[in-house]
């Protein structure tokens, strides 16, 4: 049963009065032991917000994580390497012209026992394609779809306008038609109106308290088999320091998004295991080339020297990434070269040793000398117009690591005769400046999805000067390859093109790609084990492109499970807390009033 916050507030006032009045309430609270749960509950803390749990509109990371647990896709990203593997679809086949895909839907049930059919999938896709409100989160995935039809209960046919290689990583949550056909207003539907929320994933949403917690129960009908954890709760913490304390105390079982200092501090706790997982995130410094927009209008005010590839190469050579990993990231990163991270082993490009740019100040100086940027009297090089080269570096004020990095970079750039002015701005202002092209160099970073397509699309000419662009890079050959890879349905052949595109970006130094940043997580290993990381080799538990981490989790031993159940009944704790709070207050009151009486007596 849930009560509105106002009712609860009034209630608390009444309860406080009752508690002060006498111990009459205590027998009632003992009776509350009835809500003790007998099953195994695993709690996950999150500091990021949930926008909505409606799979058609949810875009925030935690929301889509919950979505993965609630709704299965046609195909899911494997735990090993994020390559597509069967989800609701047990097999698939593209046609000879690469325009028609036929998916065979497996025999499985929704959490309410109804069969999952191809009609549910067709309903979901058609809703996104015909209703603009339903396209908010996943409209991009179906933008190239011509039609989606269910020819029978087990067969789904998707026709595309042009060949689409990213088809199997589309990540569209399939919803049950018998539930969603009754939803009239998709836009404002929060999907927490009635519980349980019928789904097909490993867990079923059974409760949601906005801004506080989400509760999911194991789905008995999940086609891979029921998860080992009975109840999974996501608990909102507003700051990671409190979440760490919650982990130490046992209020939560997994925390993520730790800072290196928090991570190190947890080392000594024997009940806690830490995981610095290889992640899909990278940090880079983009260099504004001031390329014109797609319609030809001028865009951006980047320093003109950045148009010269020799300058961009020299800047890259001047940055000592291993030192940054060591001093700024405290070892929790890997030096990076490419925007497709190595966790996607199929897609990432490794520059051969003769091309690899590693820290080499002499080489940087040599490149700049050869390109004709002579040093002025003060040691700062001058551009072709005779003006000293001084670059602005845009940094968001909420990112302390990037601010530290900028101090190193300033020194390294000055060593090769390039002036650097760090501009620390609010993250909103920094976004605005990047969007307006109002910068020379800027820190940014991305979380890359399982299909390389969208990260690669961010470097094409048509998105220059829009919200979508990463580096405002523009290169005709790159755009040609981009179109080619999207139409190439043969995976090895596509990999080759994708790597060639990254090679082109690397040769042109589209950006100084600094580090692949690991995700720092920790969990109560005295309670839970068996977390499947993604990628399998040293990957992450939370924030995956899949549900593997939570799905694999199991309680440590049967006895431990009983302990867990017992500790879930926190009524004695509640009573203890309130009673000791009152006792403390009474003690203070008594102490002060005693002093006061003594004082009064003295006066008389």
């Amino acid at each position, binding site marked *: 049963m849930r009560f509105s916050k106002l009712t609860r507030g009034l209630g608390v006032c009444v309860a406080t009065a009752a508690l002060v009045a006498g111990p009459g309430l205590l027998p009632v609270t003992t009776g509350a032991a009835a809500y003790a749960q007998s099953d195994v509950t695993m709690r996950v803390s999150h500091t990021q917000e949930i926008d909505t749990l*409606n799979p058609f509109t949810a875009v925030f990371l935690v929301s889509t994580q919950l979505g993965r647990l609630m709704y299965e896709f046609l195909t899911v990203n494997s735990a090993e390497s994020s390559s597509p593997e069967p989800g609701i679809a047990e097999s698939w086949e593209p046609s000879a012209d690469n325009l028609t895909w036929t998916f065979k839907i497996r025999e499985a049930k929704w959490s309410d026992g109804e069969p999952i059919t191809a009609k549910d999938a067709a309903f979901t896709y058609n809703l996104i394609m015909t209703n603009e409100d339903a396209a908010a989160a996943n409209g991009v995935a179906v933008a190239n779809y011509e039609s989606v039809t269910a020819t029978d209960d087990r067969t789904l046919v998707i026709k595309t306008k042009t060949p689409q290689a990213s088809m199997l990583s589309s990540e569209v949550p399939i919803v049950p038609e018998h539930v969603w056909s009754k939803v009239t207003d998709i836009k*404002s539907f929060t999907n927490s109106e009635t519980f349980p929320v019928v789904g097909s994933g490993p867990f079923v949403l059974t409760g949601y308290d906005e801004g*506080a917690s989400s509760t999911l129960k194991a789905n008995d009908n999940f086609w891979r088999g029921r998860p080992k954890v009975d109840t999974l709760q996501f608990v909102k913490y*507003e700051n990671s320091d409190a979440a760490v304390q919650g982990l130490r105390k046992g209020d939560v079982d997994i925390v993520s998004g730790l800072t290196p200092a928090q991570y190190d501090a947890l080392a000594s706790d024997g009940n806690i295991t830490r995981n610095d997982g290889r992640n899909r995130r990278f940090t880079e410094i983009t260099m504004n080339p001031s390329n014109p927009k797609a319609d030809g209008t001028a865009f951006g005010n980047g320093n003109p020297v950045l148009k010269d590839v020799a300058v961009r190469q020299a800047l890259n050579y001047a940055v000592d990434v291993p030192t940054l990993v060591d001093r700024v990231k405290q070892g929790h990163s890997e030096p990076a070269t490419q925007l497709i991270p190595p966790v996607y082993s199929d897609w990432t490009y490794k520059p051969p040793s003769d091309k690899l740019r590693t820290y080499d100040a002499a080489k940087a100086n040599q490149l700049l000398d050869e390109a004709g940027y002579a040093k002025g009297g003060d040691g700062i090089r001058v551009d072709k117009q005779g003006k000293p080269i001084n670059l602005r570096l845009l940094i968001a004020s909420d990112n302390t690591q990037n601010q530290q990095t900028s101090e190193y970079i300033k020194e390294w750039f000055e060593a090769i005769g390039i002036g650097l002015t760090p501009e620390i701005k609010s993250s*909103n202002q920094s976004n*605005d400046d990047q969007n307006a092209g109002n910068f020379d160099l800027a820190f940014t970073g991305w979380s890359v999805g399982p299909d390389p397509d969208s990260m690669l699309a961010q470097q094409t000419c048509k998105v220059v000067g829009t*919200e979508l662009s990463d580096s405002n890079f523009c290169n005709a050959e790159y755009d040609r390859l981009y179109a080619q890879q999207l139409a190439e349905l043969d995976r090895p052949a596509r990999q080759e093109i994708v790597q060639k595109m990254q090679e082109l970006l690397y040769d042109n130094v589209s950006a100084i790609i600094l580090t692949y940043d690991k995700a720092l997580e920790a969990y109560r290993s005295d309670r839970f084990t068996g977390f499947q990381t993604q990628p399998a080799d040293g990957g992450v538990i939370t924030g995956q492109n899949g549900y593997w981490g939570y799905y694999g989790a199991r309680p440590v031993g049967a006895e431990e499970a009983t302990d867990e159940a017992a500790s879930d009944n926190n009524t004695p704790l509640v009573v203890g807390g309130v009673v000791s709070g009152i006792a403390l207050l009474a003690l203070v009151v008594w102490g002060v009033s005693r002093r006061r009486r003594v004082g009064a007596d003295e006066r008389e």
Partner: protein
Amino acid sequence: MVDVLTTTESATDLVGGRFGRGGSTLRFVAAKIGGGLVSLVMVVVLGFFLFRAMPGNPVRTLIRDRPGDLEQVERLRREWSLDKSLFGQFVDYIVDLAHGDLGTSFKYRQPVTDLLWDRVGATVLLTGTALVLSVALGLWLGTRAAWRHGSRFDQLSTATALVLWSVPTFWLGLIVLIVFAVGLDLFPTAGMVSPGGVDGFFPSILDTGHHLVLPALTMVAVVYAQYLMVMRSSLLEEMNADYLTTARAKGLRDDDVRSKHAVPNALLPTVTIIFLHVGFLISGAVTVEKVFSWPGLGLLTYEAIQVPDYPLLQGSLIVLAGAVIVMNVLADIVYRLIDPRVRTS
């Protein structure tokens, strides 16, 4: 605080000047309410332009790290009316507002009114509890400190209050959390209710009370000093008044002289401050909410700035500023009612 006080003082002058000398109470009240309405209209207009002048691009924030295409960018701009002219957006906003509609949040895609309403209760519970406790504690300690000013009790309680007042709230909150929630294992580390909620009416109230202890305690510790100091200084001003000598001469006990004669006269400035603070109640305490993950209005607003979620920000501003304006008007009116000097001058 000082600013607020000045406003009231000038309001009092106004009372003495324009509306004094038997000026009708009705006229006075109407003028006050009219002034409040003018302020509110200014907030409504200012809120619209202020947030749009702020840096930030909601489209860029909300499509970040998601597959995107240009069509989607257009779709979002259309959904949020960002493709319209600024003036067009303003007209829509005013028309909706006239119908009692604060618009739909960009981020949550829900009516702003619902979002705000859900959070107001949580915030009022926390800040209201903290206000009642800190006023009680502040007045009590302040009275005693002034009555025996210069004593060890005075020095100790004033010093303690000022130290707590100057300690950073975030730091104090974390220490409280580490000691009481983790070290002593007495209280939960986050939220207003246990995850998933608790069945039954009384258990759920007890559960909320259990969660409320630490944030309320932290807030009281940080703010009670201001009530203590005001009460202490206004009582000190009364200390040498002739009427107290008279009262003592009548043979009254010291306690009676204090509680029946001195304190009632010293309460006036304190009551005014309390009234004005009630107005700030719902703007809450973002820091305390952040430390203890209390799902209040302050946090909702803070997180909305990061998008920036214009409709949600406008709605919050109207509610937050509205509360302050209403309480200011009430404070002016109540002040006139309870202070004999203002009433008769």
